[in-house]
């Protein structure tokens, strides 16, 4: 029996015209049905990345074959899939084989405790069941092969049969992953060769969504959104078709908003949803924008696209709606880990393309932002000086306005210098040049830098009518080899934020304190300001991002904290939000090796 099976399997696999997964798995199932008395054979992948889903629902059908001539007597196609998912007995197999990895036998299916579709099984006359767990290279069960029999299984010895089948299928899964990875990359490269010369990102991505990715995961609708650092949202780049339920002219997804934004925001990993209408998914207004599909939108998979050049920065999102069952494409199926794996793999290529093309757009966005930022203080200086000059001979005017106007000019000039410095470091930190060329190191008292930073925010404190003396600096006398101007920029931006986003319900008060650990200098900047929403904690350092709560109180372009993080990271440090509210506390960790300048001789400091 086992020899016959092996020969048949080999024959089937050799005959496979491609190494596409579906065909490989079809071959295996064909071989089993040809060499055994199995009435129905199906292979299911197990999905571990599905949140609250039950195990049985988290399985996805790869292939299922009835003995020739048999037709499943289901009500309709969707019931067919769902019935089988519920009746799949996978839970039994996983529970019973968890330790042994040996096949699970059941000689009376109706007695299986997790069996939920007795009626369907009755109609097919199935009585015997064998479940074979399929592990991957790490010995994690990634699939279950289910064999149903009307008569007693004529397979001897069963253990050898199960081991052979298990190894073949496990190997097929491995081949399947490799084949798909190679093939999707070839397809994407071919598309780029055809469309790349058009220099239009949308033209490159339309065929990717319309055809290429569809070959690796059947879906009814898909869209790609890319980060717009100027407007602070993910904007639609390409779609297979999207419908709007209101009169909005644009589709936009804010970072962390809705189910789509979550994958890019707090989660930063592929997200899969079984049912968009379930209450827990809480579809908000963003879901007014849905892909056009034949079936109502039900299942969804969202893949974050990570920027290759900046760690953890999500520059785009791909969203797939309504997976199609491989056998019957009109049936809505569940997305699974395998879909997420191949699409995440493909997203690496998409990331390179987006990063390359976005470079120019981001530079323009950055210039626009900086221009707007610069215009305000420049215009203030201009109109204030103009009014002073036009009225210089009017003594009462001078007496009345001179001091306040000179203060306005001074403040605006200081603001402009700080903005220019911030943008300079913004530009430097995002340029691929060695750190040794970005920064000028000198032995500097961190306390002096903090006092200097506090002085630079005096004008803004005066304008906003807060007492800058309430910025208390209490750190040890640390002397570090750092760039004085860069770190003044860091603390200028942090202190400006404490002033801009102060909470008027409390007295303005900022505390800057520090202590040492064995390997780090720790600096805490805390205030009783508006606070930071916990869900924004991972995004506030993203270029262009602005938190919801601060947007209620003041405007800004989301540049400052991005620069702060980049500078601190360049010096081997870290910054995080250690406390979100009452007080809000930023914790800056700087490595002890900044105490001397040896690090400036290292390769990491001097190489790109």
């Amino acid at each position: 029996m086992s020899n016959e099976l092996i020969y048949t399997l080999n024959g089937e696999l050799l005959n496979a015209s491609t190494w596409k997964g579906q065909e490989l798995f079809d071959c295996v199932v064909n071989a089993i049905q040809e060499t055994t008395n199995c009435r129905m054979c199906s292979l299911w992948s197990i999905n571990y990345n599905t949140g609250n889903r039950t195990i049985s629902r988290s399985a996805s059908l790869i292939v299922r074959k009835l003995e020739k001539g048999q037709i499943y007597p289901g009500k309709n196609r969707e019931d067919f899939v769902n019935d089988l998912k519920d009746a799949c007995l996978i839970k039994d197999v996983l529970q019973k084989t968890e330790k042994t990895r040996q096949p699970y036998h059941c000689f009376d299916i109706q007695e299986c405790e997790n069996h939920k579709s007795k009626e369907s099984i009755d109609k097919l006359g199935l009585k015997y069941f064998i479940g074979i767990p399929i592990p991957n290279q790490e010995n994690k069960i990634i699939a279950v092969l289910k064999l149903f029999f009307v008569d007693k299984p004529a397979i001897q010895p069963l253990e050898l049969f199960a081991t052979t089948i298990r190894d073949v299928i496990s190997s097929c899964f491995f081949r399947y992953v490799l084949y798909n990875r190679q093939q999707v990359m070839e397809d994407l490269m071919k598309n780029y060769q055809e469309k790349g010369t058009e220099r239009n990102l949308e033209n490159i991505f339309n065929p990717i969504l319309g055809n290429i990715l569809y070959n690796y995961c059947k879906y009814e609708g898909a869209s790609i959104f890319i980060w717009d650092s100027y407007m602070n949202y993910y904007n639609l780049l390409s779609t297979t078709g999207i419908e709007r339920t209101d009169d909005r002219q644009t589709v936009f997804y804010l970072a962390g908003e809705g189910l789509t934004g979550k994958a890019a925001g707090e989660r930063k990993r592929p997200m899969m949803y079984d049912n968009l209408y379930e209450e827990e998914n809480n579809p908000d207004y963003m879901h007014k924008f849905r892909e056009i599909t034949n079936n109502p939108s039900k299942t969804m998979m969202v893949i974050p696209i990570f920027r290759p050049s900046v760690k953890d920065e999500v520059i785009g999102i791909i969203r797939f709606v309504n997976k199609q069952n491989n056998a019957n494409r009109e049936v809505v199926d569940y997305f699974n880990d395998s879909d997420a794996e191949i699409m995440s793999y493909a997203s690496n290529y998409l990331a390179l393309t987006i990063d390359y093309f976005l470079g120019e757009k981001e530079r323009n966005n950055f210039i626009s932002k900086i221009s707007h930022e610069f215009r305000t203080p420049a215009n203030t200086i201009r109109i204030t000086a103009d009014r002073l000059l036009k009225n210089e001979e009017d003594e009462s005017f001078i007496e009345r306005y001179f001091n306040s106007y000179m203060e306005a000019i001074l403040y605006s000039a200081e603001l402009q210098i700080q903005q220019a410095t911030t943008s300079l470091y913004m530009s430097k930190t995002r340029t691929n040049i060695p750190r040794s060329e970005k920064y000028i190191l000198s032995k500097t008292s961190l306390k002096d830098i903090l006092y200097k930073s506090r002085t630079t925010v005096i004008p803004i404190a005066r304008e906003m009518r807060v007492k800058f003396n309430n910025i208390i600096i209490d750190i040890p006398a640390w002397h570090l080899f750092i760039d004085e101007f860069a770190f003044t920029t860091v603390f200028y931006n942090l202190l400006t934020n404490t002033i801009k986003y102060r909470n008027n319900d409390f007295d303005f008060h900022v505390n800057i304190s520090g202590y040492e650990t064995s390997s780090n200098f720790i600096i805490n900047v805390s205030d009783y300001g508006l606070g930071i929403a916990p869900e924004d904690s991972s995004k506030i350092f993203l270029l262009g991002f602005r938190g919801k709560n601060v947007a209620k109180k003041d405007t800004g372009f989301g540049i400052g904290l991005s620069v702060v993080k980049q500078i601190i990271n360049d010096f081997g440090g870290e910054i995080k939000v250690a406390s979100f509210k009452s007080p809000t506390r930023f914790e800056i960790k700087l490595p002890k090796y900044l105490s001397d300048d040896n690090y400036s001789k290292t390769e990491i400091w001097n190489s790109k």
Partner: protein
Amino acid sequence: MEQQVKKILWIDDNVNRYSLMPYIDELNEKGFTIVKAENPDESDDILSKQKDFLCIIVDISMPLGEKIPFGEAKGGMQTGLVILKKLVEDKALDNVKKIVFTIVDNAEVREYCNSQTPKIRYLEKYRYFTDAFVDEIKTIINDGL
């Protein structure tokens, strides 16, 4: 006879800051009274009590306040547009001129302003010295477009 107060509502988060101070001083000297709102909540509050303004000046990039949704105002980048639409819909303000006065070039807002009848003037801050600005405001109030 009691002289009528020439009131202007100015909705701008910088309305109490240095950057608008010279404009407001100039308007005050020319006999205008400026009612200041730093955010949409303050302007709502003011407009619920008084509507007898000669004109309402609105900035575009502004804080959201408590009522305007983050997404609708694009995180504050277009708060002024949301306010402007509400002002346009308010029939009691039909005869009050609306003016956009902003540092930001925003094509969407400009398009909205141009689509209104009569058109809403979109003025860029950096194009106006204080005296020219006051002249422009007077022209808009007196003649419309």
